[in-house]
């Protein structure tokens, strides 16, 4: 008995010793808040240029739109801002971080602008409120009309700073619009601003795609009667026919290195996937099946191509290895899967599926697992395409019976919003690479 008492005492002592010698171990397996509280202050006039409230307002609106789309932030209500919001001080030491911390903000954007001699200068800072550090600082000089461009570029920078990967907001979107009565090629900003018509074929233009290496687009047009593949330089407007085989020359897609173009040809009386050189010569034929094979989309490494085929009955997504030409089936669910788009960062393939006569956007892993439906409800959502950073998807949506419009959403299906105006029957969006 005595032994027991003694040993018990010793054990207790050891136990206590242990508990102080060891740090208490804790696992925290998710953040408590899944957004970053961000305060976006209004640009203030700096220097001698005087006040141009319109500049500050437009900048604010464009930047806010990008930041909200990113889904990263919980914007601190500007109505609750305290005195520091009205002070220009852009240096770390000039900012009263305590005020921002009181508002619960963890990040803070401050900036100033000046317009002198027709030149617009905008200076911007992103601060970490908690550690009181400058995360990114940028000064932009441009034309007075460059406000939107500067806002998008800084939004890209903010995402770079907070995620390690630049945002896609300063890129462009090409799409097909019937605004003039004919399907023509258009170009617009990622927020839908300023659509510009690129073609005047007065025919049918389809399927644009951006060159990854040059400021150039390819597309299909019936301008000369046959659906031929065209190439167009964006800034010079120079245009030429790249592939004019009899039958279809459709769905052209540049390889990730820009050296080849995958497309559908039907010169031998059946649609097959081919690879062309950028001079339009056929490099090789990838598929050989009496069924319909269309809609190629390159893997990020450029060694595989997803495409649509009805070789097993209904249209489904398949993947062909461009070297071995071995074909594997990717989708098995649903009766009509089409328009695959491979995430340029890898991982998943987006496509649209028709169920009960309605198209919705889905994604699936490259290995055919973990299929997810991203959009729901009425409205046909078709032709998904990824942003160059793989964070967002654009697609066409005919919700509401006003014809199709271009929409944007996050890669997980949240944050969907329309970006092109109603009434154009806008379709076939394509997202540019970074310029």
């Amino acid at each position, binding site marked *: 008995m005595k032994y027991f008492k003694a040993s018990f005492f010793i054990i207790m002592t050891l136990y206590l010793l242990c508990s102080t010698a060891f740090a208490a*171990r804790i696992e925290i397996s998710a953040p408590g808040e899944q957004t970053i509280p961000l305060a976006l202050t209004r640009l203030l006039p700096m220097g001698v240029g005087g006040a141009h409230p319109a500049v500050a307002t437009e900048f604010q609106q464009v930047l806010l739109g990008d930041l909200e789309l990113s889904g990263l932030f*919980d914007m601190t209500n500007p109505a609750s801002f305290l005195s520091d919001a009205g002070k220009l001080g852009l240096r770390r030491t000039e900012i009263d971080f305590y005020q921002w911390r009181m508002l619960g903000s963890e990040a803070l954007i401050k900036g100033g602008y000046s317009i002198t001699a027709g030149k617009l200068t905008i200076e911007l800072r992103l601060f970490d409120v908690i550690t009181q550090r400058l995360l990114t600082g940028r000064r932009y000089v441009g034309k007075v009309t460059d406000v939107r461009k500067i806002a998008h570029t800084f939004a890209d920078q903010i995402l770079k700073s907070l995620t390690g990967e630049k945002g896609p907001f300063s890129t462009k979107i090409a799409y097909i619009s019937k605004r003039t009565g004919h399907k023509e090629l258009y170009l617009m900003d990622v927020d839908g601003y300023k659509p510009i018509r690129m073609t005047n074929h007065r025919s049918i233009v389809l399927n644009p795609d951006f060159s990854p290496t040059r400021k150039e687009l390819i597309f299909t047009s019936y301008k000369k009667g046959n659906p031929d593949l065209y190439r167009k330089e964006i800034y010079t407007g120079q245009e030429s026919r790249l592939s004019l085989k009899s039958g279809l020359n459709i769905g052209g897609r540049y390889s990730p290195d820009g050296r080849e173009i995958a497309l559908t040809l039907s010169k031998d009386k059946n649609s097959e996937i081919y690879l062309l050189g950028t001079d339009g010569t056929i490099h090789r034929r990838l598929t050989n099946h009496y069924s319909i094979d269309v809609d190629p989309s390159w893997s990020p490494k450029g060694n595989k191509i997803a495409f649509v085929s009805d070789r097993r009955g209904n249209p489904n997504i398949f993947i062909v290895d461009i070297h071995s030409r071995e074909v594997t089936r990717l989708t098995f669910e649903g009766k009509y899967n089409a328009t695959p788009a491979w995430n340029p960062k890898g991982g998943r393939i987006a496509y649209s599926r028709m169920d009960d006569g309605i198209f919705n956007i889905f994604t699936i892993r490259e290995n055919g697992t973990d299929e997810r439906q991203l*959009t*729901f*409800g009425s409205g046909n959502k078709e032709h998904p395409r990824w942003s160059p950073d793989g964070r967002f998807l654009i697609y066409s949506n005919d*919700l509401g019976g006003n014809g199709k419009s271009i929409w944007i959403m996050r890669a997980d299906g949240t944050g969907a919003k329309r970006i092109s105006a109603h009434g154009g029957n806008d379709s076939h969006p394509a997202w540019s690479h970074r310029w």
Partner: protein
Amino acid sequence: MLLVSLLLHLLLPILSYIPFFSQQALEKPPVYRVNLVNKIVKNPQAGRPEAAPVKKKPVVKSKPKPKPAVKPKPIPPKPKPVPVKPKPKPIPPKPKPEPAKPKPIPKPEPKPAVSKVQENTLQQRLQQMRATQERKASEQARKDRIATLKAAALAESSKIKSPITAAPVGMVDGKGDEAGVSAIAFVQEFIQQQWNFSKYQASGNPEAEAKLFYNAEGTLLHYKFIKKSGNSAFDESLTRAIAKSKQLPQPLPESMEFHIFFNLKDMLDRP
């Protein structure tokens, strides 16, 4: 004989310690939430850490409020609450308790705000409208949180019908006799609530470890990262969380060191 007995007994706690800790690090330890108004005690009784203290005391009090494993929105105020006019009417939907059985603990869901809008089959437009509304609402909600919480606690004390309403404040595995929660559970909850990180920042499965040393007053004396994830967005978010946890809202029973493993296992939706 004595020696053998001693050795055997010695071995016992040591054995129990080592696997206990490694086990803790692998599985996550307490998955239930902790109501941060509960007192930190050294020997918590058996009970539920999310329950609210019963007695009327200066701070927020209410009848016990069951808060099961499913992670709802964190309850208590931020360290530096906004000085706002309290709007004491609506009970925020988030801290609403969802009774569930305590033991088979399901994985906590990430907050619904940005994740699975997919669940509902409403139209896009509706989703959108709701999203913007939610955003506005969450802004307001944050400001109102403290005030609302007080009101809610009060209101719920009369409303709760859950069978475990009467659960006392304590720890699920509590063996002591004090009404309160363990320091570990409290610190885990508190630091988690200081941690803001978006799934849109995540890449891969980042993991980091830090050691935090608090004195008995609950003040962070020093900390160091044992391991960084290499994902700077992730690591920086942890630095911010720790900076916001410089002062715990309650003293600890004694000075303590915490070895914290941060990861995103319960946020990343990546099967």
